[in-house]
């Protein structure tokens, strides 16, 4: 294998996974509509592309295996077999296996080996069975591959394409996967590497395509590869059709096509190679004939970028923002009046730049939802339940890092819904609910916050049961009368599980407390609401991006602190005596309400005392409010947050710091923790 092709392989990993996602998505839909030809067609094409490209990159096991899967799809396409539960199970398991094969290409893992032979056996059984069934003359599936392009030229031709791949292709950002998926839309094809024409720098491939598409459609695919590809007509018929004696002999068919090419003589191929070289010298002349200018039907709307590059970009942006605030501070005197307009322009631009860089990092939630669909399918089957997933607003975007870290807690919540929430079909029927349960994921955005709700229509949470359990565990006293919300909050305590029996699916003692911890680590918040008999909902509130936050800067003694601007209700001033008077209840009046206050000096062990006029910052989180006592309010600050690192792991209220214009550092107060702390104080 040409070493430069290793770069292609990285791209292959990525694109193959995308294709597998697509097949998975199609299959999930097919389960509901097993006769939808378009879906079968689309899944088949994606499989075919994976097969073709994996073969080119030397992923022999992937190629062999997808070939088997493809055979099954072929039979389904030809209506010789129909999807049943068993086939779905096997194809889903096969998809997972292909994913594993891509990372374990040499099939080194023992577990994967076993899986590999087991699945191949399963697939062979399906194939054998259909063969037995279809041994009647009715087998007249004429064209092997249904062709979806407009059939104005209904004569099927066989084309030979010589394609040379080298490093240049990689640098030009050309995707082989893309080329092959376009090819598979035109018709069926086979590929083979021509070893005698390949050297260290390039590989030459022979692709045989049978298609009824006119030549210019084929040349269109290779429009960017003109100097690398030669397209010639081999026959005015579909040689696959002539060679193939049914899909089960496909292996042989492939063999004979290769022989066909080989037998056509090296001389002939060498001549073509010469032609190819001619084109290299003469490429301007070559563009003249046949090929239309780039009328690319699907303009590229998304590009994939290595996330390390994005991280670097974000790092640079945050440094720029820091320098920007230093610059503003340093030029804040009359003697810089002449350059002030320029400084302000730089300031405005860097803020725009910051916002733009943030948007690049945002990823829609829908990318994650596919995995949930699969989870719901597998789990509900395992537990004998019927569950549908519906989503709304999953195009809402979140920072890539947040999405990655959100995956696990969301999975856990959904697992809980399936396992503990939704009842078995007969139980649902007994209480007059539809047999099929519903899990609904809703997402929407308000300001810098994204709210994600996961609801089920299961039996809900029995408050009394939770209360008794808490009493049993010594968390509550038998005489306590907690509110509903307080009872729901108990579920987030470590080791608190309400299921009567622990199941394999969820409730292994690590439960909602871990979920809550993860969400809080993301500077987010999670709440539960439930109506017994109707269902349960989990609401997650997250910040859209977490690296740079508009915040309010204030001081206590000589330390600087910040709080996200979005959390702030109001800033006010209270005489020290009044606070002193209210010290025993630690609450102050605000708008006809008493709200708890936090003495930051006490909480953070800062020396000194508040001056006569205490500046009070009132922050809000959902329905709760807390007042922070501070010395001085400085103003707005764009906090470029840096984690404090593991030396400060024991810090309770501070997890990150940001640099101020003068080089000093300000600590971001974790308001979520303050709220839990004031809750504790209240109880």
């Amino acid at each position, binding site marked *: 294998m040409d070493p430069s092709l290793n770069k292609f392989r990285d791209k292959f990993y990525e694109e193959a996974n995308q294709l597998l996602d697509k097949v998975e998505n199609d299959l999930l839909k097919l389960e509901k509509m097993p006769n939808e030809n378009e879906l079968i067609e689309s899944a088949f094409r994606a499989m075919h592309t994976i097969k073709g490209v994996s073969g080119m990159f030397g992923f022999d096991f992937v190629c062999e295996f997808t070939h088997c899967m493809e055979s099954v799809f072929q039979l389904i396409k030809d209506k010789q077999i129909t999807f049943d539960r068993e086939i779905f199970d096997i194809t889903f398991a096969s998809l997972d296996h292909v994913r594993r094969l891509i990372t374990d290409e040499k099939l080194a893992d023992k577990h994967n080996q076993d899986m590999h032979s087991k699945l191949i056996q399963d697939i062979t059984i399906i194939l054998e069975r259909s063969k037995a069934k279809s041994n009647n003359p009715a087998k007249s599936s004429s064209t092997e591959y249904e062709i979806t392009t407009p059939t104005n030229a209904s004569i099927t031709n066989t084309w030979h394409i010589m394609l040379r791949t080298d490093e240049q292709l990689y640098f030009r950002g050309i995707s082989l996967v893309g080329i092959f998926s376009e090819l598979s839309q035109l018709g069926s094809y086979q590929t083979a590497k021509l070893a005698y024409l390949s050297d260290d720098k390039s590989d030459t491939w022979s692709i045989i395509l049978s298609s009824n598409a006119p030549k210019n459609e084929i040349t269109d695919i290779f429009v960017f590869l003109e100097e690398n590809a030669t397209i010639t007509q081999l026959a005015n018929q579909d040689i696959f059709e002539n060679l193939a004696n049914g899909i089960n002999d496909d292996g042989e068919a492939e063999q004979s096509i290769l022989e066909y090419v080989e037998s056509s003589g090296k001389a002939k191929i060498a001549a073509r190679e010469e032609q190819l070289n001619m084109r290299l010298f003469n490429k301007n002349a070559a563009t003249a004939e046949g090929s239309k200018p780039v009328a690319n039907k699907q303009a590229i709307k998304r590009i994939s970028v290595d996330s390390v590059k994005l991280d670097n970009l974000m*790092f640079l942006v*945050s*440094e720029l923002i*820091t320098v920007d605030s230093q610059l503003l501070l340093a030029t804040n005197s009359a003697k810089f009046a002449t350059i002030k307009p320029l400084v302000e322009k730089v300031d405005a631009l860097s803020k725009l730049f910051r916002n733009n860089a943030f948007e690049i990092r945002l990823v829609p939630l829908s990318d994650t939802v596919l995995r949930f669909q699969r989870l719901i399918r597998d789990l509900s089957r395992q537990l004998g339940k019927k569950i549908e997933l519906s989503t709304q607003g999953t195009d809402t975007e979140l920072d890539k890092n947040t999405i990655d870290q959100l995956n696990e807690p969301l999975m856990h919540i959904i697992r809980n819904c399936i396992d503990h929430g939704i009842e078995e079909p007969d139980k649902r029927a007994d209480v007059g609910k539809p047999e099929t349960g519903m899990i609904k994921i809703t997402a929407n955005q308000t300001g810098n916050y994204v709210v994600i709700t996961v609801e089920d229509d299961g039996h809900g949470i029995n408050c009394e049961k939770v209360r008794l359990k808490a009493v049993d565990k010594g968390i509550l006293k038998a005489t306590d009368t907690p509110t509903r919300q307080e009872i729901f909050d108990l579920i987030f305590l470590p080791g608190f599980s309400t299921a009567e029996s622990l199941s394999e699916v969820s409730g292994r003692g*690590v439960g909602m407390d*871990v979920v809550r911890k993860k969400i809080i680590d993301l500077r987010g918040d999670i709440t539960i609401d439930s109506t017994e008999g109707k269902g349960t909902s989990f609401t997650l509130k997250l910040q859209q991006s977490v690296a740079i936050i508009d915040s309010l800067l204030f001081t206590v003694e*000589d*330390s*600087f602190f910040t709080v996200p601007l979005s959390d702030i209700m109001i800033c006010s001033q209270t005489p020290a005596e009044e606070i002193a008077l209210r010290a025993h209840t630690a609450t102050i009046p605000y708008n006809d309400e008493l709200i708890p206050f936090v003495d930051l000096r006490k909480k*953070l*062990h*800062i020396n000194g005392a508040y001056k006569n006029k205490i500046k009070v910052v009132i922050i809000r989180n959902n329905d709760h409010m807390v007042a922070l006592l501070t010395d001085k309010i400085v103003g707005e600050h764009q906090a470029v947050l*840096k*984690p*404090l*690192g*593991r*030396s*400060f*792991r*024991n*810090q*309770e209220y*501070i997890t*990150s*710091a940001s*640099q101020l214009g003068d*080089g*000093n*550092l300000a*600590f971001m107060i974790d308001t979520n923790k303050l709220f839990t702390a004031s809750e504790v104080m209240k109880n």
Partner: protein
Amino acid sequence: MTSTYLSFIVCDELFAVNVAKVLEVLQKQRITHVPNAPEYIKGIINFRGEVVPVFESRTKFNLPARPNDDAYVVIVFDLSKGADVFRIGTVVDRVKDVISIDDTEIKPVPPMSKDFNTDFLQGIYKQQADFIMLLNVEKVFTGDELVAIKDTHLQTVE
């Protein structure tokens, strides 16, 4: 084998560290005190865009506390292991010199005062009339850090 060392002074005592671990020496660096932090952590600094904790060498070695208005410099060490990036700073009185020391010239640590913490010493080097205490930087800092790292592991196992 000869290695290069950076020598510095804390409380009139001469110390030296292998320069391979030293990233930068910062003069007049403002250190931000962290509320609720352990005593040996002097604070944090913004170093090349990252928050780096700074330790007080005097507390670490059990030497008399630093008067508030005394001059100091911060030496930033790189104690990363593979992908695990770990940088840490320490406050010393001043840096002195860069010297080459041959391994064979390093003498073992003699018994010292109970009050002085000798666990971090790698050996003693005599330079003319001065005795320089060679520090094992990893040991100086990983003592407390190890606990923190262990904690992190426990967290992930959960």
